[in-house]
């Protein structure tokens, strides 16, 4: 199991629960899952069970955020593990999309 995605939709708010890692072998599945969402005004990406993300994964996240933003959909990434958050920071995603979009996991 490399990456498992569960989608929950409540009142036009979609929550995607991820379980696994995000690299070149799994980025396609996350893009597909997001592209399937219709009539949604808010998307939450739950990274609680994400074990690893590299720059390819970050690149895809960035692409998805840009797309959702351009469609007027609010997007947030929640429960980012510290090790993964470090990569987000190195590649400057909070700077581009705003600190409030990325929420670190509480230990």
């Amino acid at each position, binding site marked *: 199991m490399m990456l498992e995605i569960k989608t929950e939709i409540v009142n036009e708010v979609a929550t995607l629960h991820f379980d696994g890692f995000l690299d*070149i*072998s799994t980025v396609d599945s996350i893009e597909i899952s997001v592209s399937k969402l219709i009539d949604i005004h808010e998307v939450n990406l739950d990274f609680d069970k994400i074990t690893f993300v590299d720059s390819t994964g970050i690149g895809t996240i960035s692409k998805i955020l840009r797309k959702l933003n351009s469609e007027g959909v609010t997007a947030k990434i929640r429960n980012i593990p510290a090790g993964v958050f470090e990569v987000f920071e190195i590649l400057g995603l909070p700077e581009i999309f705003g600190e409030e979009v990325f929420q670190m996991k509480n230990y």
Partner: protein
Amino acid sequence: MGKVRKLRMWYKGSIKRKMTFKVTIYVSLILLSILSSYYYIFHHIFKERFQVEVTNIAATAASLIDGQEHNRLQTHPDENSVEYRKIQRLLQVLIDNNSHIKHIYTLRKLNGVTKWEYVVGADNTKDHYHIGDNYAVIDQEVIKNANNAPVANNDFETDQWGTFLSGFAPIKDNKGQTVGIVCANITAESIIKQEIGLGLWALFLFVIGLELMIHMTYVAIKKSTKPLDEIVFSIRGWQLGNGDLQEKLNIQTGDEFEVLGEIMNQASHLLFQEKRMLEEDLEKSKMERDKIFNVYRDVIFSVTQGKFNLLNESKSNPISCEGNLLTEVKIVQPSDVNTARVLINKMLAQEKHSPEKINHAMLCISEAATNVIKHANYGVMQIRKIANGIRVTIADEGPGMEMDKLPNMVFLNGFSTKISCGYGFGIINKFADKIYLTTSRNGTFLAMDFLKVDKTA
């Protein structure tokens, strides 16, 4: 269709062969037409000669035969009579002395106009006819003319005895009246025999002439196309790349080949100069490239405080061989990236590196392996045990990186910059303790060291 193609295939090749082929055809046609007219002319000459001969013999016989005696055989048709015997002997002597004459006999006109009968023949005609037998006239006109003077048939005539050329002459009595006709035959065979001899001789001349012409033509063509061979040989030398552009053709034929040779010499001279200039430029640009490479290497080395080492291609070997090989993994498909990460995780955990260090190393390996998948399709990752840590090397045969983009790749992190590829290098530069990189058109080699002792310690 197939035949035409086959002929054309044969026709391909050297000019020598083509010209010999053409000349052979032309010469054959000319020789054949000459020989056939020669044969035609000689056939007529032969025929005329035999016509004269047969007429002469008939005339001789007619002049020797006594007209009165011949006339007497009309009233006493007796083959045992003195007159008959005398005339027969006379004819026999003539036939014996002339090998071409097959038959000789006398005829006389019956009371009608067109009917004729045999009278006396040479001994060899006895089986064929006898005195008083009907003679079938083939050409009335000739017989009519033979009443007045010796004459021959225009052409061969065929009767039940064979094909003959005949001559006729009138037998006259003492009053000058025609009382009969002598007819002499030459068989076609004796003429054909001579003509066959003539034909064989013509054939012999044809073969000899053709052989001689082809040989002479071949020699001439060979001689005149020799410079062409030289040119072809010389150009083939250039084509193969092992020819010497400084070598000059020396053709002194005083014709187009000499001009061509001079043009070739000029062209090769120009090519040689161009080649030398290009080689100089290449050398210069190589030196320039080396200079730029050295600047990049030094700048990157000092900015990273000795962490990032750009290497010349040849110097990468000791880096790739240092220490002991622990494991190796092929990077071919996306799932191999995770395999590589799992491996480095295991290896570093065995070496008791900190979890943070392991995480960072996994990130570096993920970036390097992903680069192989994205840019090179195939690569080999090795994990080696070195003196104070682990070295991960990744080699591929991809198109290599562009040197002028390298500083951006190494020093600019993240997506705020417009460079979308190579942000992984920023991560590698941040988390690996030592980096060795060599890249060229032949591929890229990257080595990352993860050391046990913290470098700040």
